[in-house]
Each structure stands twice: as C-alpha cells, then as structure tokens.
C-alpha cells in the first residue's frame, strides 16, 4: 500500500511526446494528459464494490435510530445505577426493554434498581429474565449479587421467632432494649435486624423515642444498611427533636438511593419542623417527581400546602391518600395527616 512519486524535467509532454508541457509542475505534462491523469478513472468494479458497501451501510443505518435510542437509554440506565439513581435507572431500563425484552444488561439494571427501591413486582419480573442465564459482565454480576443481598433484609427466615416479637410491646422496656443482645450467633443477621426493627416500631408507637433509638442503634450495628431501621431512626430522631441527627440519617439512606421519594419526604417534614418552608417545598416537589404515587411524598406535599396556606390543595391530597390507603385497608398516614390539617396536631 504505497503512493509513489515520479519526477521528470523534460519540457515536452512525457506522456504523448507531441505537445509542449505546461510549466510550473513537478512533471512535464501537456494540458490534455494532465487532465486525463488528474481524473485517473476509478474502475467499474470499484463503483460496484462501493455501491454494495453503501447498500449494506444504508441497511444498517435504517435500523439504527431504534437501536441508537435503545443504546442511549441503556447507557443512561448504567450511569443512573452508578450514581445510585434507581428511579431513573428503572425508567431507562424499561425504555430499553420495550424494544429488547430479553436484553440481560437492561434486565440487570432493572433488577438492581428494583432491589434498592424495594419494588417487589419488578424485582420478580427481572429476576425471571436473569435466572439461569450467564452474565459475562463481572461488574454487573457483582452489582446484581450485592442488590440481591440488600433485599434479603426484608425476608425473615426465622418466622417463629419473629412472631414472638409481636408480644414484646407488653414486656418491660429493659427487656425490649436488650433483646437483641440475648440472641445467639446462630440467628441470621437479617433476622436479628428485623426483630430489632419490630421492637423499635412498637416503642415508636408508644412514643418512647429514647429506647426506640437505643434499639435501632443496636440494630444498625448489626445491619448498617438496614432500610427499615434507618427510616424509623429518622422518624424517631425527628420526633425527639434531633433534627440534625434525623437529616444525617436521611443522608445515609439517600447515599444508597438518591431518588428515594420516602426519604426525601422525610427531609421535607424535618425542614417544615425547622420552619424552613422554602426548602421543604423544594423537597416535596422532588419527592413527588420521584414517587408521584408515593403516599409519603403526597403527605409531605399536603403538609407543605397546608403550612403555606393552600388548604384546599392539601385537603385534595388527603382525599387522594385516603383512597389509596383504602385499597390496602390502611389509614395510618391519612389519620396522621388529617390531625395536622384539622389542627388537632399542631406539628410545629
């Protein structure tokens, strides 16, 4: 593969040898010969070769917009997972899976996102797609395994022992506080954390925040990433007036999932207690963006409306929360919120 040079100095055209060469060029060629060589022909077979390549290229490019789109969404899902933005990751993975339902990588990202958002339905869907299929990307596989471990905190193995914690609320505070210490090493860490959470929840309901926080601290010493325990710690610290500590615990969970609507809603409620209404409004908006149907986000937004004097809007959201809770035969949030909105609970 070379380009070679020819050098000549004769004054007559070196090609036709009949006409005088044009001066000023490295080689002596007449106008006609120079024009001919300037346009050295490209052979027909090469035109055909180029046309075949062009056709193949067009065939490839015709399908490209869809695949380009899918590739962009796949990369966005990957990036969102890297940044712990799991709501975005799930949305982006879904956009890819709309075109390519079996794509392992997208199902992997969806699984990770579903795990960190505790989205059981999508977790099962993506798990079925991943089951028994080889994942060659070691980093992705490690992330999937890590996410799977994270979800295990929700699944109790010792259900009998777990059931026994239901009666704990009648026991003396000291027994409740020290229960975790009494468990032997044979009890699985995730089970221990679950017991701790349940005991703390009973204490929270009794408004014994001091003991509740003590139990939660023991629980988090066993299972530092425990979502339920950290979430309850935020509420306990907030109700105990430790706003700084509550916000710090929010940051712990937001480091795991930066788009956690429930935790952002918690931040909003703390800011409302601190009378930082502007920040609270921004956080409520953010929580609604990430969880448009999340009850905690709706509650936070209703409270922001209420404290900014928009009572009809807050009542509208209360009605919506009531309707949503009715579907699960629950009324915890709506009752709590209605007390604030009708002035029974001054909140701040």
């Amino acid at each position, binding site marked *: *593969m*070379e*380009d*070679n*040079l*020819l*050098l000549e100095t004769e004054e007559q055209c070196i090609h036709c040898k009949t006409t005088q060469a044009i001066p000023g*060029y*490295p*080689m002596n*060629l007449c106008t006609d*010969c*120079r024009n001919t*060589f*300037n*346009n*050295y022909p*490209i*052979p027909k077979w*090469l035109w055909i*070769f180029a046309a075949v*390549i062009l056709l*193949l*290229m067009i*065939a*490839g*490019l015709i*399908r*490209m917009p869809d*695949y*380009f789109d*899918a*590739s*962009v969404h*796949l*990369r*966005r899902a990957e*990036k969102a997972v890297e940044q712990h933005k799991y709501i975005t990751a799930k949305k982006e993975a879904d956009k*890819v899976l709309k075109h*390519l339902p*079996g*794509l*392992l*990588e997208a199902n992997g990202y969806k699984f990770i996102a579903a795990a960190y958002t505790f989205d059981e339905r999508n977790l099962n869907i993506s798990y079925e797609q991943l089951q028994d299929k080889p994942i060659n990307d070691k980093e992705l596989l490690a992330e999937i395994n890590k996410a799977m471990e994270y979800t295990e905190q929700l699944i109790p193995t010792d259900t009998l022992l777990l059931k026994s914690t239901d009666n704990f609320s009648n026991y003396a505070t000291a027994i409740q506080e020290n229960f975790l210490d009494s468990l032997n090493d044979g009890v699985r860490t995730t089970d221990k954390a679950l017991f701790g959470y349940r005991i703390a929840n009973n204490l929270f309901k009794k408004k014994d925040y001091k003991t509740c926080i003590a139990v939660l601290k023991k629980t988090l010493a066993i299972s530092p990433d425990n979502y339920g325990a950290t979430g309850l710690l935020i509420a306990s610290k907030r109700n105990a007036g430790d706003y700084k500590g509550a916000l710090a615990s929010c940051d712990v969970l937001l480091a795991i999932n930066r788009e956690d609507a429930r935790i952002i809603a918690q931040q909003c409620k703390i800011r409302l207690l601190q009378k930082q209404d502007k920040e609270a409004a921004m956080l409520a908006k953010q929580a609604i963006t990430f969880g448009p149907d999340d009850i905690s986000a709706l509650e936070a937004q209703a409270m922001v409306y209420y404290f900014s004097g928009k009572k009809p809007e807050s009542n509208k959201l209360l009605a919506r929360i009531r309707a949503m809770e009715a579907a699960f035969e629950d009324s915890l949030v709506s009752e709590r919120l209605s007390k604030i909105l009708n002035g029974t609970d001054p909140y701040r």
Partner: protein
Amino acid sequence: MFIPGIIITILTFPGVIVHELAHQLFCRWFKVPVFEVCYFRAQNPAGYVIHEKARNPTQAVLISTGPFILNTVLGFLIALPAALQFKLDAANPLDYLLLYLGISIAMHAFPSTGDAESLWKSVVKGETSSRLSKILVTPIVGFIYLGALGSFFWLDLMYGIAVAIGLPWLLITLWV
C-alpha cells in the same frame, strides 16, 4: 500466535482497496496526476498509487495520510449500527458483515512505510519545502513508522476494533 501479514491482508482486502482509493481521491482533489493504481494484490505491498509529486507540503501530507482519514471515518460509519446491535445482543448476519467491513477498513487506516517514505522524500528532503513544513512533517513521518512498527503487535487490528466497536460506544457515552 504468528499469522503471516499477507494472510491478514487478504482477509481484510476491503480495507486495502479503500486505502488506495483514499490516496487516489486525495490526488484527484488536489489535481495531482495519477499514473497507476493497484487496489489490491496478494503480495507486498498489497496496493499502491503512483502519482506526481504534490505541489506543496499540505497536499503531500494529505495525500499520504488520506487513508487515515477516509478509512477511519468509513470504518466507523459502516460499523456504527452493527456495533450498537452487538452491545444490545441483537446482532444478525448483516451486522457481522458490517462489523467485518468496518474493522477491515479501519485497520488499514494507518499509512504504510511507503507512504512515509514518499512524504519524507517530497517534504523533508524536498528542496522547495520550507523549514517549518520540514519540522511539522518529520514527526508525522515518525508516527507513520511507529504505526507500521506497531502493526507487528497487532496495533492496526486494535485500532480497527477501537474505531469499529469502541468509538460507537464512546459516542453513546458522550451523548448521554
């Protein structure tokens, strides 16, 4: 594993054809007469273009490095849709063909030692070339020789894969 260069050249012949065509097209663009073109043959060199000496260093550089530009751009464009399909596990036989063409074409982007030699003769050793053009062209010639040396270690193939597979994915990353 040692595979004779000529076998690689034969297997990736579309790249050789595009390489020589690039020299020819740059000559045509600069109105430099071309006297003979061999687009492909099963010997060393696998192709060549015999043309008049370029009238200035810029033309000489572009004629010599033309394949680097054309083969890279063409290799990337041909392989782009196929590389995305591979990333999405949705590749079909057409994509295999496009990827083969893309890699073949891109891996022949490197100017040959013959190209470097002609650039050296026409610019660095050229009597009419300015000192500045000699200074600027010397490292280009050096890089071409380095590239040729690198092909012993499959640098040309690595370059072809990077252009045909790596670049499309980099484009997506930058797009996001």
